[in-house]
């Protein structure tokens, strides 16, 4: 594993899912079909908190799927990031409302990266997040930029204009303090819910005006925790994107196989068929990159930053394209409020903007593979 505690469970070869992982997928899918179906998601969109805390607690408690990659010595089940990605894919397929990205994607991995020596309060917080009894959000600039929030040591100041899941119980915040970079936990701050494009993934504006905070880590340890959280978050967000894109492909296929125009199923027209074939390519590419990144972070088989950026650059673009194509395949109905496509479309656009845009990830890919490339003489150029 690249940069966190060694896992207990043996990892299967890349892209090979164990029977336990298949069972896990089935169990989560069944619960979500029952408790996060489209009607429920739409109802939750209209509520204040935006999610159902009882379902969240069930996912954490009964199913135990919110912190699968938490090592045993930190009170977790010692599963793998691949397990958690399988679950995230199902969350994304259902558009599960709730602090999926803030808590599962970012806060839990940040606390895991702090390790066993982080103190009992941190251990208790991690335990509560994993159990689904408390929630957390995470705010740190991407790609190692300096935070705008400042710290006095035990209080935070500054404004975070957009925090995903910013209404959560606890905020894990990167701040510049008297001794440089630090990672803090705060329950304070003035949180204002923002009106968002995607109503299933909430954001808040957070004003920290002397909000009491507890230092979790500083210096290199804070940097490491932030980097780990953002890598894991990138993988799990990519897995969510795969789940959503696959659901849209399924919807499009079902529609093209039933909708009749000119006396035939529209899927028999090559213009429609080829569009759907291309959607399939996009989904398969997304899946390959997301799970490669999950395996790479887990077993250290690839540069984690490269694997995550490939996954994020691919999944962000492909999910959006598949969503736009899904509107097109459905024609007018795909543009209506009643049809589920717009919920996914808005999620796709939102996800693409979180944790670094596709362009930002391509920039990192270029830095890793193009800027440093050495010529081999393989590509010859004719000189006339």
């Amino acid at each position, binding site marked *: 594993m690249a940069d966190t505690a060694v896992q207990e469970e043996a990892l299967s070869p890349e892209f090979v899912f164990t029977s336990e992982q298949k069972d896990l997928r089935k169990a989560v899918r069944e619960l979500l079909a029952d408790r996060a179906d489209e009607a429920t998601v739409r109802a939750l969109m209209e509520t204040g908190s935006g999610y159902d805390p009882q379902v969240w607690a069930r996912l954490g408690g009964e199913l135990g799927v919110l912190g699968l990659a938490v090592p045993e010595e930190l009170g977790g089940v010692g599963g793998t990031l691949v397990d958690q990605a399988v679950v995230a894919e199902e969350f994304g397929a259902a558009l599960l409302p709730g602090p999926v990205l803030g808590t599962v994607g970012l806060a839990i991995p940040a606390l895991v990266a702090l390790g066993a020596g982080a103190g009992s309060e941190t251990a208790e917080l991690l335990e509560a997040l994993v159990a689904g009894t408390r929630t957390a959000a995470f705010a740190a600039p991407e790609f190692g930029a300096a935070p705008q929030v400042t710290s006095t040591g035990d209080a935070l100041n500054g404004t975070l204009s957009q925090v995903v899941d910013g209404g959560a119980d606890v905020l894990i915040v990167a701040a510049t303090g008297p001794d440089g970079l630090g990672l803090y936990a705060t329950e304070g701050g003035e949180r204002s819910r923002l009106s968002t494009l995607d109503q299933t993934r909430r954001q808040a504006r957070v004003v920290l005006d002397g909000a009491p905070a507890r230092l979790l880590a500083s210096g290199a340890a804070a940097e490491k925790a932030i980097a780990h959280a953002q890598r894991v978050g990138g993988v799990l967000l990519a897995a969510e994107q795969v789940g959503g894109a696959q659901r849209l492909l399924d919807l499009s296929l079902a529609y093209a196989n039933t909708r009749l125009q000119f006396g035939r*199923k529209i899927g028999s027209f090559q213009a429609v068929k080829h569009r759907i*074939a291309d959607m399939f390519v996009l989904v398969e590419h997304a899946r390959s990159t997301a799970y490669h990144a999950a395996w790479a972070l887990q077993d250290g088989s690839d540069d984690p930053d490269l694997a995550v950026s490939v996954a994020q650059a*691919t999944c962000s673009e492909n999910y959006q394209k598949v969503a736009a194509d899904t509107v097109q395949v459905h024609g007018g109905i795909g543009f209506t409020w009643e049809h589920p496509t717009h919920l996914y479309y808005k999620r796709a656009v939102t996800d693409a903007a979180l944790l670094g845009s596709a362009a930002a990830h391509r*920039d990192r890919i270029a830095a890793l593979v*193009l800027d440093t490339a050495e010529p081999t003489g393989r590509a010859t*150029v*004719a000189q006339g």
Partner: protein
Amino acid sequence: MDDSARVEKAARQVVETHDPKKVPLREFLGACYDAGVSWVHFPEGLGGLGVSRGLQAVADEILQGAGGMNPFAINPIGHGMAAPTVLEHAQGDLAAQLLRPLASTEHIWCQLFSEPGAGSDLAGLATSAVKDGDEWVINGQKVWTSLAHRARYALLLARSDPDAFKHKGLTYFVMDMQAPGVETRPLRQMTGQAEFNEVYMTDVRIPDSYRLGAVGDGWRVAMTTLMNERSSIGGSSSVRGVGAIGDAVDLWAARPDLRTPVLRDKLAALWTKAEAQRLTDQRARRSAGAGSPGPEGSIAKVVSAELNQAVYAFCMELLGPEATLYGDYTLRDIGRMEDYRGGVQQRFLRAQANTIEGGTSDVLRNVIGERVLGLPGDLRADSGKPWKEIPRG
């Protein structure tokens, strides 16, 4: 001894007794055949050891590691497509007679499938096969035939019954390219080179014993060949950053004077897509290796063909005015496929064929839509009619 150890032992014996750096190529490859490591999944005595196909990698690593040439590079159609087709469908001792010289590359093979009037709609082909005693008489024209000018044998698909439905009236043969009435002409392509040929057949006689499969069963036999073609064209390397994208990165590295931020983002996007497809190929191999090939394997050819074009188009854009220069349009007679690569400008032109050869991207998208995703077929103007009543042109 388990199968893997058997393969390893056989391959090691070949390189010990026939050091590929010392003995002539055909002798080395002939020894591979005799030892059963040409196609390890073939039966013993016919170039194989009767073990799992996946173990070929074990043999190849040893053989190529010792400096042995991959026969696929010299005899791609013979080694990759003819051999499995002959093994599965040849009568009597024909396979035993044909496979060893094929494996040693003494006999190069070609494939006579496409015709001027039958490209994507291969089953509509018109070359006729008429039975005459113990022989068949062949008349017609084939096109896009790689290596025909060097080939000793051809895989031939011909129409034996024009009154049958088009897929039902075909019969499959092995044809001797040195038989009277076979004429091969180079087909020059936009690169200036001629990787392909036209082959004209005028009253060519083929013994009935060289028929593969039953009379009228040619389409099914051809599927054996084509399945092997798609997998050999589609499967990209498991190594990151080789192939077309490797050329582009190499050019990028060699020419810092041409870099701009916009081109950098373009190349990063192409690299990312190539990486996504490489990972998808790996995933497909994993699921195929686990005995349950997934649908992801079907996209390799479509994606890699279009990616090659996009990558070489990028190289041309990067080069600016230099892209408008060219090496040489002189037609040369060269042996191996890879010798046709030339400079980046030639590779760019060559890539334009990628979305056509081995199944056009248009048809492959139909295949993905219909066979992989289960979408309904298009309306067809040729269904339910005997071949001779189908409009052609």
